[in-house]
């Protein structure tokens, strides 16, 4: 059962996807559904016996492209109703490699560049569809984040609406641009470069830093220095630079506590609803759940009830730790 229900109190949509309760949970390597099919007796999700990068529709989706009802553009959040909209949208899995043990940070840079080109193609193709308003590309890594398959992979959720966190970012960006005729994110990049204390590393095309307002101890943002609204606008040299930056950041994470750091990696980009978002600046956000080598940051009362994050650390100190780990 796939449903979208509207919470009129918090003014948010909640997606129900009951089939996800049955999804594959850490199968042994020989039964990994993302490995290529090596024997007809043991077919996986991917019929070929080898591949570079594969994208396929999620077997346990939150949204379905086949739903025949979607939220109308003028969906009225101002009145009280108990409608159960079907969750029209698309959920994809991106298998980064046929090698079960080759994590993103261990891949050759050219393969990561190719993955970025696949992300570009998916953003473009999914975003072209009329019922898709927002394309969210992300990777959940590690059991602490809730991953159920260890094979290196990411996901793409093509939403039939702009989800609330991107919507807040877009509204703030628009408000700042309208008032100052400047990109809010470009201004943040400028300030980070001036202060330098939160920058982990930087190259000609990307800046990698813990934001002044980080919610999580090791939350890192990667911004293209050039004002770009989505990943498709990257030139070849920027794609290669981004590949190098992703590899370097994750390797620094891994060196921090001498184990592979779990994280949620997300890309915030322009919506795909055909409106003008020239004021927005696309970027990556990384959310590792660890606050020390053996302690996790949990969302508890204050975060869940008040919406105020308590960061047990200072971004400047955590950035200095990551900066040292070259």
């Amino acid at each position, binding site marked *: 059962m796939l449903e979208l229900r509207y919470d009129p109190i918090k003014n948010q949509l909640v997606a129900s996807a009951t089939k996800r309760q049955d999804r594959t949970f850490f199968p042994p390597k020989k039964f990994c559904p993302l490995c290529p099919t090596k024997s007809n007796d043991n077919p996986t*999700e*991917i*019929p*070929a016996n080898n*591949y*570079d*990068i*594969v*994208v*396929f*529709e999620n*077997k346990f989706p939150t949204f379905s492209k086949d739903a*025949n*009802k*979607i*939220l*109308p553009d003028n969906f009225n959040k101002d009145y009280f109703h108990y*409608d159960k*909209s079907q969750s*029209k949208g698309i959920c994809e899995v991106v298998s980064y490699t046929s090698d079960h043990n080759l994590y993103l940070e261990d891949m050759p840079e*050219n393969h990561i560049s*190719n993955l970025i*080109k*696949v992300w*570009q*193609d998916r953003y*473009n193709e999914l*975003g*072209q*569809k*009329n*019922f898709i308003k927002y394309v969210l590309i992300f990777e959940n890594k590690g059991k602490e984040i809730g991953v159920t398959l260890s094979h290196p992979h990411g996901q793409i959720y093509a939403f039939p609406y702009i989800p609330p966190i991107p919507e807040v970012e877009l509204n703030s960006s628009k408000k700042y641009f309208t008032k100052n005729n400047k990109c809010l994110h470009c201004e943040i990049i400028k300030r980070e470069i001036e202060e330098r204390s939160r920058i982990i590393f930087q190259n000609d095309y990307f800046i990698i830093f813990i934001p002044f307002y980080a919610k999580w101890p090791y939350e890192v943002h990667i911004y293209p220095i050039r004002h770009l609204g*989505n990943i*498709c*606008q990257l030139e*070849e040299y920027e794609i290669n630079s981004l590949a190098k930056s992703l590899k370097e950041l994750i390797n620094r994470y891994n060196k921090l506590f001498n184990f592979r750091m779990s994280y949620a990696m997300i890309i915030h980009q322009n919506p*795909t609803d*055909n409106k003008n978002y020239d004021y927005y600046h696309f970027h990556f956000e990384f959310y590792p759940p660890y606050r020390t080598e053996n302690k996790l940051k949990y969302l508890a009362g204050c975060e869940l009830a008040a919406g105020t994050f308590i960061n047990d650390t200072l971004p400047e100190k955590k950035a200095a730790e990551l900066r040292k780990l070259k």
Partner: protein
Amino acid sequence: MINKNSEPDTDKNLEEPIKNIAKKKEIIKEDGRYLIYYDFDDK
């Protein structure tokens, strides 16, 4: 709620088609889900 299944799927104009993808092959699996192979020449 409205039914938009009868509307064309794509009439937006977002970005130029992505270049530099050597080969892209789509298949439909037995259960109706699509799967796309992206192959690159730089191996």
